């Protein structure tokens, strides 16, 4: 079973602290929502976890190792950071074949994930002609290429139509049921509330809450995730109130 652990993670850009001493751990077999207002540090945290940026201090690990030390990382962790990471002149199929090569993933698997995300019939078309939703599906297909134990998805529902959002919810639930760790950020609180088991909420780079959905609502008396979120992340909210954190470990 795969685990993600973030310990004292801090990232600064000049005088701005984007991620501030962040600590949490995710449980396998569960979908964890990663929430925070714009600029809270969600994407930065995910990029730190994936080795695309380097922390000022602290560490983020997958199965006890930093991403940069993983062997065959695509087979351990699948990531969707940005749907616009494909060359516009290449077909969806070519983009995935290129992504698959370093992990020696066969072309047959490329076809499987293309069909899984509903792009089988559009795989020959150039990615530059894809809609935002299609690029999002292609990025999701890239994340699934290595059949990984862990998925890190930044705003995966962005650009998807309602049918696509419904499909994504089922896909994530199915992956978690198989025992995989799913870590997903989103601004769609109502949607996320239907999908996730646990939540990690950050504001201004600091941890606000890390708990199960049910535990969070019960402990805080909030009527909904949105209710809690808006209260905890308002400009005058105290950062990192430990009351909201049952435990930094969701295991």
């Amino acid at each position: 079973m795969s685990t993600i652990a973030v310990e004292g993670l801090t990232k600064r850009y000049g005088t701005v602290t984007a991620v501030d001493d962040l600590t949490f751990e995710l449980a396998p077999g569960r979908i964890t929502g990663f929430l925070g207002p714009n600029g809270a540090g969600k994407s930065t945290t995910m990029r730190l976890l994936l080795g695309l940026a380097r922390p000022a201090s602290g560490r983020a690990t997958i199965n006890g190792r930093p991403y940069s030390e993983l062997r065959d990382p695509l087979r351990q962790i699948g990531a969707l950071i940005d749907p616009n990471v494909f060359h516009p002149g290449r077909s969806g199929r070519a983009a995935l074949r290129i992504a698959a090569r370093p992990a020696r993933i066969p072309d047959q698997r490329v076809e499987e994930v293309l069909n899984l995300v509903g792009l089988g019939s559009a795989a020959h078309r150039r990615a530059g002609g894809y809609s935002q939703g299609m690029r999002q599906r292609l990025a999701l297909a890239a994340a699934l290429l290595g059949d990984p134990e862990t998925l890190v998805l930044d705003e995966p529902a962005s650009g998807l139509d309602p049918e696509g959002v419904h499909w994504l919810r089922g896909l994530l639930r199915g992956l978690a049921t198989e025992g995989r760790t799913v870590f997903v950020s989103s601004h769609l609180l109502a949607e996320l509330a239907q999908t996730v088991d646990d939540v990690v909420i950050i504001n201004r780079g600091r941890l606000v809450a890390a708990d199960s959905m049910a535990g969070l609502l019960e402990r805080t008396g909030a009527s909904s995730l949105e209710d809690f979120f808006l209260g905890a992340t308002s400009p005058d909210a105290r950062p990192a109130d430990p009351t909201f954190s049952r435990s930094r470990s969701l295991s």
Partner: protein
Amino acid sequence: MRSLVSAELLKLRSTRSAWIPLAAALAIAVIAVVASTTAAGPDGNPHLSPAALPGLLRASGGQIVDGAVLLCWIVLSAGEFRHRTSVTTFLGEPNRLRVVSAKLIAAALTGAAVGLLAEALSAATSAAALSAHHVPLDWSQPGVLGAVVAVPLLAALFGVLGVGLGLLLRNTAAALGLALMWAFVIEGIIPALTHQPGTTRWLPEAAANAVLHGASPAATTLSAGVALAVLTGYAAVLAGAGAALTARKEIGTATG
């Protein structure tokens, strides 16, 4: 490493803006031979002779192939940041120096292959053209082997230069602009600006010409061996600087 090099070559095959310059260079290699042999004789041009063969091989495959390979790998390496495909690349292989090494190997292989292909096409076209003019072919004459070796070797080095420049600037337009400015303007005015005419022979274009054509009798150029070493030095410095920057910089930001 083989799978990483394979991925880089697949990027080349699936990127039209990268392989079109290579295809164009091969076509020009053939056209250059046809044009040279057609123009021979009339209007005061020298008649074709067996000694024309090395010149045909060098002229058709030399700077055009070098330039095409350079442009191709600038487009591919700087394009990783322009199109943010660097994110996918470094998620697949987080060891950035391994990725850079794969790019350099793929670029050198591409250059050598395109250089060899250009020479093969030039040789076939030259053979046909010289035969049509009833000029005997002498493949063993001095200069033939040198051209066949020098053209792929130079193209491989220009591929490495392209990767280094692309990774260093991380901006396709800036890297292409600098390469073209260097070739057509900067290298030509450096001696005038420095008041040191002797510096010319140490510059990349002059060094590449010296490798291709050998030292001039007036000793205004480097010997082929020294020129090759100089060009290899430029390639190593650019590739090293590009690799160091790639290892240090963040990936997936507006500039990376």
